[in-house]
């Protein structure tokens, strides 16, 4: 498997991550190094299967589905970069892009 710059930039766009031109070569090299390494799992035949792994207990006890106020030491306005009238403020949406 060989990942090119176009693919790395496409993935960066999916991940909403700005990437600087100065990083391109290193990122492509390291993505290839990692992806080729994890591809060693191809050595494991597809028909070797075990009971699917379940993270955590199989009988997770759920709490009652009731709304309750979360006690917070400070309000969202204290944490948000911009907040007014009960809303988080963001810049304009701009033009939609093709993914």
């Amino acid at each position, binding site marked *: 498997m060989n*990942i090119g710059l176009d*693919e*790395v930039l496409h*993935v*960066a766009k*999916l*991940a*909403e*991550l*700005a*990437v*600087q031109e100065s990083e391109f070569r290193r*990122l492509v090299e*390291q*993505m290839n*190094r*990692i*992806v080729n*390494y*994890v*591809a*060693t*799992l*191809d*050595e*494991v035949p*597809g028909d*070797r*299967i*075990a*009971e*699917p*792994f379940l*993270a*955590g*207990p199989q*009988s*997770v*006890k*759920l*709490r009652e589905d009731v709304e309750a106020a979360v*006690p*917070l*030491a*400070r*309000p*969202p306005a*204290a*944490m*948000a*970069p*911009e907040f007014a009238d009960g809303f*988080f403020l*963001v*810049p*304009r*949406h*701009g*033009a939609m*892009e093709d993914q």
Partner: protein
Amino acid sequence: MSGAATARETGARLAKAQPLNAVLHWSQELLDAEGARVDAMPAGSSLAAMPVALKDNIVTVEQPTTCGSRILEGYVSPYNATVVERLRAAGAMIAAKTNLDEFAMGSSTEHSAFGRVKHPLDPSRVPGGSSGGSAALVAAGVVPAALGSETGGSVRQPASFCGVVGVKPSYGRVSRYGLVAFGSSLDCVSVFGRTVDDAARVLSTISGSDPLDATTVDRAPMRVPKALPDLRGLTVGVPKEYFPADLDAGVSTALRRTTEQIQGLGGEVRLVSLPNSAYAVPTYYIIAPAEAAANLARYDGVRYGKRRIGPEGDIRSLYRTTRGEGFGEEVRRRILVGTYVLSAGYYDAYYKKAQQVRALIADDFRKVFDSGIDLLLTPTTPTPAFKAGEKTEDPVAMYLADVFVCPMSLAGLPAMSLPVGRSEGLPIGAQLVAPHFGEELLLAAAQVLERTMDPLAEVR
């Protein structure tokens, strides 16, 4: 000793330990307040005036939580993690928030936005990671215990490098409410201790179900184990795949001595096989980045943390610039890998394949424990602590530092590192592994070994 006196002494030790760069936040004022709070509590609290440090991905109301990242610089949580509430209720004092690899992604604590942590015995070396700050503080004698977090060995590996006890509980044993999420099917709050007893007392305090975390198990908290006289009646499995021919000579000798010690204490040692553990690191480096890519999507500059807006001035530019500038290199790399393995066309080849192999790895452990093995013994790490900068250019070389600790994380098992000797002055850890919710036996056996082995003994 009173809380007030403990606060003063701990503050003095924290100030002296500053060159390690192990601490991101502490103040004498907050420590004194903690001392006064515990002094006002009724006598007899289980952790009376024990100063405990917290990895800075465990949220606290009184101190910032940065996760070692510029993107959360200055962020202060509006609530305490459940583990913090439980420690405080038991009389512990929150001493400091410790340095870590950014968002717990790393094996050396070199990937912190606030500088690397130095190994307490040799500042040119790393303390391991990602919970390197907590490990270094306990090793330097600043605090008797500290919390870290494990996603793929981030407490056991630094515990081994620093020569302290590090315990990862079973997945679901300890609440993660207030632990900043990295890999949700793997993350566990875990414990460092100067001794097995310190670690056991802290783990017992923080364990147990939590209505605020639906992944905690509905069972009683872990009890501090009763002391065992020896290891008679115990069968310890030694998996052959964890002793490769190129294992560091010091690690190999220390583990051989540990095996002999177990036999000398009446335990039976049996060679076993965990064939799929060889695939644990590649499996982990698909599943963990995939989960991280989803979990870290919340850092977008809208609701909290730093905000940067790019030249376009719209919301996409806000997301991309905030995240591109706010996250460090290793985090960005893992988000990219995680997004790649989950993307259309690659999901089956990578993510689905990793889930298949994860099940095989867990099944190996199940079969071994079902065959009459009570505990497993392996090295915690392939080498003692390595030099700073030695592995930063090759991410895969860094990932392989966790080769012996990843499999248990993928299987959700309790495991711990116990210091069992030194090689050329550097600590070596032996790893013990138990079946799910076997923490009490794990810790009881470790106590017997701790009592009878000298962790400072040179093995070469």
